[in-house]
């Protein structure tokens, strides 16, 4: 059963009716690979990619609102002229390959709990994004880290509908290390957003690490350690090397766990240099 929903209300109704047998079908770039992961497809899907409300990006004075079914390609092109969102434009515009970016959605990237290498998750964590989750009975706003904790147990019938990102004067950057130059999953991801004064001293820092552990998270000890300092990429990398012991890399066939952790200082150096524009 494959229902192509024309509107948000019909999608929420269908998901509510299908219950645990149903799921949202966004870009399909994760779902269609279920056979390769030896997973079963759901009995019923509700395609959400043609719902106008979910495919819109609204750029306001204080926030930007991104519909959950916005593709990576559409998001990257909408953000191209907004330097404060460099981190998100890079996450959406450089991940996977061009054809996948034209299909895969931001909502699918955030909602897939088994996917540790998602680029938009750390990017949105460092931008302090909120998510909106809707069902027939209403809408709820929650912080992205709260959504990440809940997503695998999200009740049937609930849909991620929107991502809301505050605007700021911070500088941001996304550094990722795939095994090939492009096209495959990153071993580790550093997304950061730094507010620096005119002498490049750090007033506020948000740094998120993806793909190293099972779920992306903020690196709060490093954020605190950088506060008040003059930002220097080499020094930031040294501090990161001292603190990196708090990460236990996840196991996988591609690389051993320690390798994911060992590349973090280098990625911190690259990301801080990129944020400084050096």
């Amino acid at each position: 059963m494959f229902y192509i929903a024309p509107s948000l209300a019909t999608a929420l109704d269908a998901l509510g009716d299908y219950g645990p047998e149903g799921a949202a079908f966004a870009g399909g770039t994760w779902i269609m690979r279920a056979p390769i992961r030896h997973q079963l497809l759901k009995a019923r899907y509700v395609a959400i990619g043609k719902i106008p409300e979910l495919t819109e990006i609204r750029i306001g004075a204080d926030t930007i609102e991104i519909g959950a079914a916005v593709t990576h390609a559409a998001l990257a092109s909408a953000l191209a002229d907004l330097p404060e969102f460099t981190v998100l434009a890079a996450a959406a515009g450089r991940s996977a390959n061009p054809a996948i970016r034209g299909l895969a959605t931001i909502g699918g990237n955030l909602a897939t709990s088994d996917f540790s290498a998602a680029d938009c998750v750390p990017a949105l964590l460092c931008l302090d994004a909120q998510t909106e989750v809707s069902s027939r009975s209403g809408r709820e706003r929650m912080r992205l880290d709260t959504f990440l904790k809940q997503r695998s147990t999200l009740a049937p019938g609930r849909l991620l509908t929107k991502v809301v990102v505050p605007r700021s004067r911070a500088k941001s950057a996304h550094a990722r290390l795939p095994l090939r130059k492009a096209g495959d999953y990153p071993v580790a991801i550093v997304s950061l957003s730094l507010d620096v004064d005119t002498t490049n001293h750090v007033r506020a820092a948000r740094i998120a690490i993806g793909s190293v552990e099972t779920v992306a998270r903020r690196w709060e000890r490093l954020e605190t350690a950088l506060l008040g300092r003059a930002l220097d990429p080499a020094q930031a990398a040294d501090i990161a090397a001292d603190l990196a012991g708090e990460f236990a890399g996840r196991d996988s066939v591609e690389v051993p766990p320690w390798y994911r952790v060992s590349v973090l200082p280098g990625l911190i150096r690259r990301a801080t240099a990129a944020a400084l524009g050096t």
Partner: protein
Amino acid sequence: MVLTLTVNGDHRASVADPVTPLVDVLREEFHLTGAKPVCREGFCGACMVLVNDKPTPSCLMPVALAQGSDIRTVEGLGSGGTLTAIQAALEACDAVQCGMCFPGMVVTLTHLLATSPEATRDEIRAALSGNICRCTGYERIVDATLSALAVK
């Protein structure tokens, strides 16, 4: 339920399950075997077809979502037995080896030629990051693309 598709300008009907990957319907029902299911993961690009002019890995597109779109496979690019500019350039540059990746390469590069007439070597390489070739090392494919762009 019968699904109706427009493939290379022809209207076709399919009785496949709606979540069947488009590539399987193209090959098994319509006998258009240009697109190849190699990885079935979106990594290799051998199954690439144009859906409303956009290169799309047909292994990841459920046939139900392809309804109402203009689907074009490598078989439908040239007309009347003539090669397209990129096909001719790839042949002239002797870029093809085993040919497994080529239907997908041609589809991606057809889109590049139509949308990025000024593409540089680096942009061509970036455009091909979802088309894996095991044989050629890519350089002749990129050279052929540059020569096709120069002719236009």
